[in-house]
């Protein structure tokens, strides 16, 4: 089987409730802060939206880590793709009907869809994962907040007309879909195993989210209401810090790290 987990709940590290608070509050506050600061102080503040996406992605990674530790029976990527599938439906609905309350409507819609799918997975499909309902709710909410955060970074607002014009109609929504989904699913997929540690997994999440932030910054070059340079620069800085931290943690968790040297040249082999 391609199941990833060890068959039990992942333990250790920061309690999930704290991460939920970081993800929900960080994601929502940053979406609104980005929106209002761009209106009040200029497009340079669009990057705050991406910071919210990073909070949501870290929360999503932690939720994926918990639920996938039980062994989904299929690869970890499935749940990340599902997160963004639910998230994109809910977030576009929320932004389309919600107006200024868009991010909150989107988040609530995503949570409801996630809860129902989690319940179906346990009750109908009989997956028997005790935290499935909660985790699916969390993952869907994280997916929706990721999409909204990256949209704010790309357009400087979450008002639907701008998002539709700059993000959806141009097809950049597909970039958000894959970059955000990858950031949520990849960290646990890359780090799973008996020596998996929460801090290492979440550091990978920050690193992947920083890449998504840089991509959002590149897209922002075509948008008038969002500056590209701050988003790209802060994204690169965050990526560098997170990647250094990740390498450090890999060295900490590895039994031994040794250099093998360069490959021998042909003369040396003779």
């Amino acid at each position, binding site marked *: 089987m391609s199941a990833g987990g060890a068959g039990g709940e992942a333990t250790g590290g920061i309690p999930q409730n704290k991460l939920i608070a970081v993800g929900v509050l960080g994601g929502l506050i940053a979406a609104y802060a980005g929106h209002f600061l761009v209106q009040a102080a200029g497009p340079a503040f669009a990057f705050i939206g991406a910071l919210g996406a990073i909070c949501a992605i870290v929360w999503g990674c932690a939720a994926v880590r918990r639920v996938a530790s039980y062994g989904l029976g299929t*690869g970890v990527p499935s749940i990340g*793709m599902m997160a963004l599938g639910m998230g*994109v*439906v*809910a977030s576009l609905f929320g932004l389309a009907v919600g107006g200024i309350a868009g991010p909150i409507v989107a988040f609530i*819609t995503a949570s409801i869809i996630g809860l129902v*799918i989690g319940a179906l997975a346990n009750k109908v499909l009989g997956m028997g994962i005790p935290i499935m309902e909660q985790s699916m709710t969390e993952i869907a909410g994280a997916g929706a907040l990721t999409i909204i955060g990256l949209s704010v970074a790309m357009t400087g607002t979450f008002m639907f007309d701008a998002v539709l014009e700059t993000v959806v109609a141009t097809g950049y929504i597909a970039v958000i879909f894959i970059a955000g989904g990858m950031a949520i699913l990849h960290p646990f997929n890359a780090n799973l195993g008996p020596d998996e540690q929460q801090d290492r997994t979440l550091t990978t999440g920050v690193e992947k989210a920083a890449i998504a932030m840089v991509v959002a910054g590149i897209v922002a070059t075509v948008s008038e209401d969002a500056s590209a340079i701050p988003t790209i620069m802060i994204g690169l800085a965050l990526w560098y810090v997170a990647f250094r931290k990740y390498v450090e943690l890999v060295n900490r968790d590895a039994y031994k790290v040794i250099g093998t040297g360069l490959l021998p040249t042909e003369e040396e082999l003779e």
Partner: protein
Amino acid sequence: MIDIAGILAENILYIVMVTLGGMLISWSVHFVPVGGAPAAMAQATGIGTGTVQLAAGAGLTGLVTAGAVMNVSDSFALVVASGAVGAMIMIAVTMIVGTLVYVYGVGVPPASAKVDYDPITKDRQDLYVSQGTEGHGLPTVSYVSGVIGGALGGIGGATIYYSLMNTSTGLSQSDLVALASIFAVGIFFVNAVIPSYNIGGTIEGFHDPKFKKWPKAVFASFVATLMCAFVGVLAIGGL
């Protein structure tokens, strides 16, 4: 505030069609010979990747071909047929190349571990299954099953796209295309993952005993897609 009841009354047919499309996708995944990571090491029958990647690859190709035909024709039958053909071609090509790699690269004969005789060709299977594996490669029955799965998935995806495109809305055509496509993709992913949890990651095709579990996944997809259909039609219809 949008007129929820009015939009729903006007587009009730499309909500039903989106839901049906989602259920078709969910059913179609059960036909696709998904081998997952074990198949990637030639230790299980099927294509060596997960359900989501396969369903997404085939389904999105179907969506592209359906969208292309939708530009020149309003006929539901034509759009759905082109979606089905696109997805079938995609999955068939994937399986042909996979078979080439398994036979000439890995060096294993295509063999099913779930049945002793291929239900289509009547060829003996169990003799060719290597010890310690769950079969390998893509026997004829899995190939045929995969193509059927591609067709159903393509029909489902194209139905969803067609329905969302025809929802009454004030959006311009290009915005509508973008919004309908991304909603269709989102709904497609949800319905590709639900059956993959149902089959537990791997399945050989319609001859696999796990195939009989499909009503569960289709029911789960019915509920999940119904919600997504309401949300999608409301969002598009409200603009």
